[in-house]
């Protein structure tokens, strides 16, 4: 019997989440931020599936279903976000989020 249990996966997920968060918070590049988001989503997925595997009652697939949905939404989000990035790039001729702070005025 393998000694790998739930905590291991949760820890991996936590690491993924944290790194993604770092990416989101500290990148100045919009695409970079997008990558961070993807990482975070992956972390979430991992947790879903892990819990589904270890905790949920046998036979229930809720976690995996959720992970599928997340993947789908992630795809959509990626498509939109990248389109937006391109638009931003067209208007500001940069994708550095520091320089695109219209929200301040």
């Amino acid at each position, binding site marked *: 019997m393998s000694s790998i249990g739930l905590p291991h*996966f949760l820890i*991996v997920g936590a690491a993924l989440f944290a790194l993604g968060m770092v990416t989101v918070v500290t990148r100045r590049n919009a695409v970079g931020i*997008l*990558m961070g988001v993807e*990482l975070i989503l992956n972390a979430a*997925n991992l947790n879903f599936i892990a819990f589904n*595997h270890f905790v949920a009652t046998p036979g229930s697939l809720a976690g995996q279903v959720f992970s599928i949905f997340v*993947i789908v939404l992630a795809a959509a989000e990626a498509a939109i976000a990248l389109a937006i990035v391109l638009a931003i790039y067209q208007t500001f001729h940069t994708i550095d989020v520091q320089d695109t702070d219209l929200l301040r005025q």
Partner: protein
Amino acid sequence: MATASNLRGWLVRLAVLALGLFGMAGAAGLHKFAHLGLGLTLFLEYLAITCVVWGINGFVLRTLPLRGVLLLVFSAAAFGVLFLLAYFLRSVMAPFLFDAAGRFIGLVHLVDLAFYLFAVMTIAGAAGCAFSRNIIYSAWSLLFAFMGVAGLYVFLGADFPAVAQVLIYVGGILVLILFAIMLTKQIGGDPKLTNAHLALPMGAALAAATVGTLTYMAVMAPWKIQAAPSYEPVSGALGVAFLTDYLLPFEVASVVLLAALIGSVIIARKEIKETSDAVSP
């Protein structure tokens, strides 16, 4: 630079080097099988090592003026060191080493090893994505992160999500991202420009805090682990589930996808138009 003379020199050195190596092995063999006397063996070894030192001296440690007495002394020292080392390894360290290796191998399951492999791959990929100075590298390390996660899915008996992960993330999103990077033509260039950071230390601190906290929770929380996790393939069951219990979300998701499709196309078109009439006048 390899004129004939020092070419010959090298060849001689090489020959002597080989001779020395053979000599070492041969002396050891003689001692083991032909029961050569220990003293004689050591002497032969010393000679052999002298040859080796002289040979090596031609290639690596050129700075030492190893010749004459100095050579003998030096190789004697080397011999002594090697001898001590060998003795140490054989009679002192060896039992511990073997024992430790045995225990270690006994401890590790192959499965766990694979798990750790994937986990490391994932986290390393994520870290690369987070901290790389060049966004291209970030993208590529993202790939590793995705693959690793897919691998982990497999461990959790989730075959379909694993496949979906590979197809959609790696095949779709990552490609998209790369496209975006290229389109915003910030490839290569000055890494600082392509992928600068902002308050990285604070971010890292935050991440550390997060990891700490979550790990703490993960370890400390009293999860109600169920008895026997199942490893059957789940694709079929998933399909059934989508069409029965989760039908509504399934439809909504498809609508969302459609909207996203249209939206992105529109944004893209607008952008194209802008550039075009930016060019036209």
